[in-house]
């Protein structure tokens, strides 16, 4: 019995968030029945897929005490690399996509080396790589959009499996797998040790540098995957794809229970955070509120989540 109540308390922030999401959904649906229609739900899931995939990597990073501002740029880079591969060099879609993923992994390796090995502040490093990568996107694209892809590629973004769009499938699979592994696998759980007390992790023999490297490479790969899906879905790779995504993802992950100091968080929470944000944006549109209010509301939600969590902690 005791174990059950403790189990509850460490998951309580997630359950709370789940409750909020559920209540919001129900309330909105009652107020505006269009909200819960299958098409609306699918549209929301679609727009959150890319962010949710990236959020998985970001959650793991935050838990380990890290941070990655370059994900938005990597999203743009991988899409552009794959696009150019297909359109300019005539590569088959899977080869081009592989190059896109490799580009993401390369940026991740770059970040990981500077942060994990040289121990430089992750915020500053990924801020720098964010800019550098965005610059690369501009350079290799010559500032122009690329489109007109083979149908096989576009299937990745627009095709359907069991009546559900591919990006959503990718997203759900990755989130489910991520949540399972983060909660149960020894390998990913080590991130909690690293974020909770890095010195302790080192003294316990956990290979901290190696794990951090892995985290950044994973983040790069997931951002690259998201980039491919977005490019496939919209049918073009633009220079500005992914701008602002990093802040959206960090917001979602923090709403989901992670802390910038590390040691806590979850993938399920990150997913719910992304879902909440997308629902809010969706309802703003549906309610006819000026779209300009979007940023304000999302910022307010983030602050509320952080303040509530902070107050809860104080009562201990």
């Amino acid at each position, binding site marked *: 019995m005791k174990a059950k109540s403790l189990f509850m308390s460490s998951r309580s922030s997630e359950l709370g968030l789940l409750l909020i999401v559920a209540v919001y959904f129900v309330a909105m649906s009652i107020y505006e029945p269009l909200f819960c229609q299958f098409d609306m739900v699918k549209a929301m899931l679609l727009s959150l897929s890319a962010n949710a995939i990236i959020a998985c990597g970001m959650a793991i990073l935050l838990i380990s005490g890290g941070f990655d501002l370059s994900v938005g740029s990597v999203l743009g880079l991988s899409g552009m690399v794959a696009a150019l591969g297909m359109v300019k060099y005539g590569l088959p879609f899977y080869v081009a996509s592989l190059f896109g993923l490799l580009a993401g992994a390369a940026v991740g390796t770059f970040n990981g080396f500077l942060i994990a090995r040289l121990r430089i502040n992750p915020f500053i490093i990924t801020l720098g790589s964010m800019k550098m990568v965005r610059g690369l996107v501009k350079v290799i694209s010559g500032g122009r959009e690329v489109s007109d892809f083979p149908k096989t590629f576009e299937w990745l973004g627009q095709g359907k499996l069991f009546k559900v769009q591919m990006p959503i499938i990718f997203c759900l699979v990755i989130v489910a797998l991520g949540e399972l592994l983060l909660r149960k*696998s*020894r390998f990913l759980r080590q991130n*909690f040790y690293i974020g909770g007390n890095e010195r*302790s*992790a080192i*003294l316990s*023999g956990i290979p901290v540098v190696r794990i951090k490297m892995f985290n950044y490479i994973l983040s790069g790969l997931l951002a690259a995957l998201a980039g491919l899906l977005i490019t496939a879905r919209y049918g073009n790779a633009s220079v500005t794809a992914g701008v602002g995504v990093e802040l959206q993802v960090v917001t979602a992950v923090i709403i989901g229970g992670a802390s910038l100091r590390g040691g806590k968080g979850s993938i399920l929470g990150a997913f719910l955070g992304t879902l909440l944000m997308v629902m809010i944006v969706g309802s703003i549109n549906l309610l006819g509120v000026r779209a300009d209010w979007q940023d304000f509301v999302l910022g307010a939600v983030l602050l509320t989540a952080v303040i509530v969590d902070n107050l809860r902690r104080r009562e201990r």
Partner: protein
Amino acid sequence: MGNTLKVVEISKEFPGVKALDGFSFSLRRGEVHALVGENGAGKSTLIHILGGVLRPDGGEIVLEGKKTHLHNAHDAALKGIAVVYQDLSLVPNLSVAENIFANRQPTGRLGFIDRKALNSAAQQLLQQFGEETAPTLQVRHLSLGKAQVVEIVKAISLSPKVLLMDEPTSSLSTGEVQRLFANLRKWKREGISILFVSHNLSEVFEVADRVTVMKDGQYVDTMSASETTEDELVSKMVGRTIQNIFGERLQPLRHRVRLSVEGFSRGSDFRDVTFQICEGEIVGLAGLVGAGRTELGRAIFGVEPPDSGELRVDGKICRVRSPREAIQTGIAYLTEDRKIHGLCLSLAISDNLVSPNLRAFVRGAGMLSDRRILSFAELCRERFRIITPSVRQMVMNLSGGNQQKVLLSMWLGITPKVLIADEPTRGVDVGTKSEIYHHLREMAKQGTAILLISSDLQEILKMSDRILVMREGRIVSEIPGEDATEELVLTCAIGARCPQ
């Protein structure tokens, strides 16, 4: 009974300081060996080297007859050396079981952690030690003492040949210390070699077989515990004989009441606390861990103000709602936790020394005067014998005893009317202790009213003019200095029959 571990001519140098200078010693199988020495003698450095965290500059480590290189902490653990460090190294948000089995959690299929096995294995280990904490409890909810126990259990669960402990009893209650010693004796019989560093000489004599003394990074002597005395150890540690480290108790100038606390209450922390301290008086505040002494001290200093009660300094009612107001009223507070609450470790000694009273070091339009700061810092360095190559040195590079001296001299800068000293000599060597006691007496002579909070009964008994005993948030007894004995104070603290 061969040597499990031998260090030969180990040296380690840091910028400006030679921590270990050709140090050699050996540890026998199945013995409990204490390592003593002043702060800065090199004990912690040695432990870090044997734990694989620091690489020696010279010398050899010989483990069971074979020369070894310890590449990192993990390597040392694999080779059979387990360490319990002084600063706790547990992950607060994870459970006891997860901490004990960090990096070696039992796994089932697919590399998934087997939680049932994890928790039951942890439970078993805890029970073997005699500890009842639930393995699923998160470490951040544990008291310091219990967390220390978890660290010890974690180390022993590695089945080491050598167990190194740096000040293992500093956070433990008396009962927990006894239980630890019982476990040490058990492990000794199993053939494990135990080396522990301690400043508490009475504990050393209680449990150690042999004692090694270090001084200035060098080996001084090794003696069998039964063949030496505390005084002999102290004189070897310090290099000179220290008579009565506590100094002579002076008759306090008993006229004016400096500090008057009336009816202080705050929730369950403390209730109806009323007492007074006169000019030049040292009043000891004794009690068990958790009795509310630190909470009371912090309340008087304004960190967490009481819900009700009145405070008077020199007869005037004072509302102290923050440390800033406390300082303005002339109250100073020496925290029990110098690293976390007392000092800014990454700042220079001089910066720390002036922090309670920056206003005094300002010249002109709000600009700090470097010259004034430095001359004050030099004055403190001299008066308090703070051992450092320069007052611009970062405080984190100082030894514990020197850090404590910085903390103390910091408050002297505001010539406080009242000083609340919370565990002023925790983790400090004998030589420095005697210096701190001397300074406390000097302050009392100048008229400061001192509230001495301490878990060291000897310290309380020898330094206090009067002793207040706290239990469960209330003052249960007031004992004049001449009548106080260890038994009396302890009985009142525990709650047995207590006069008054």
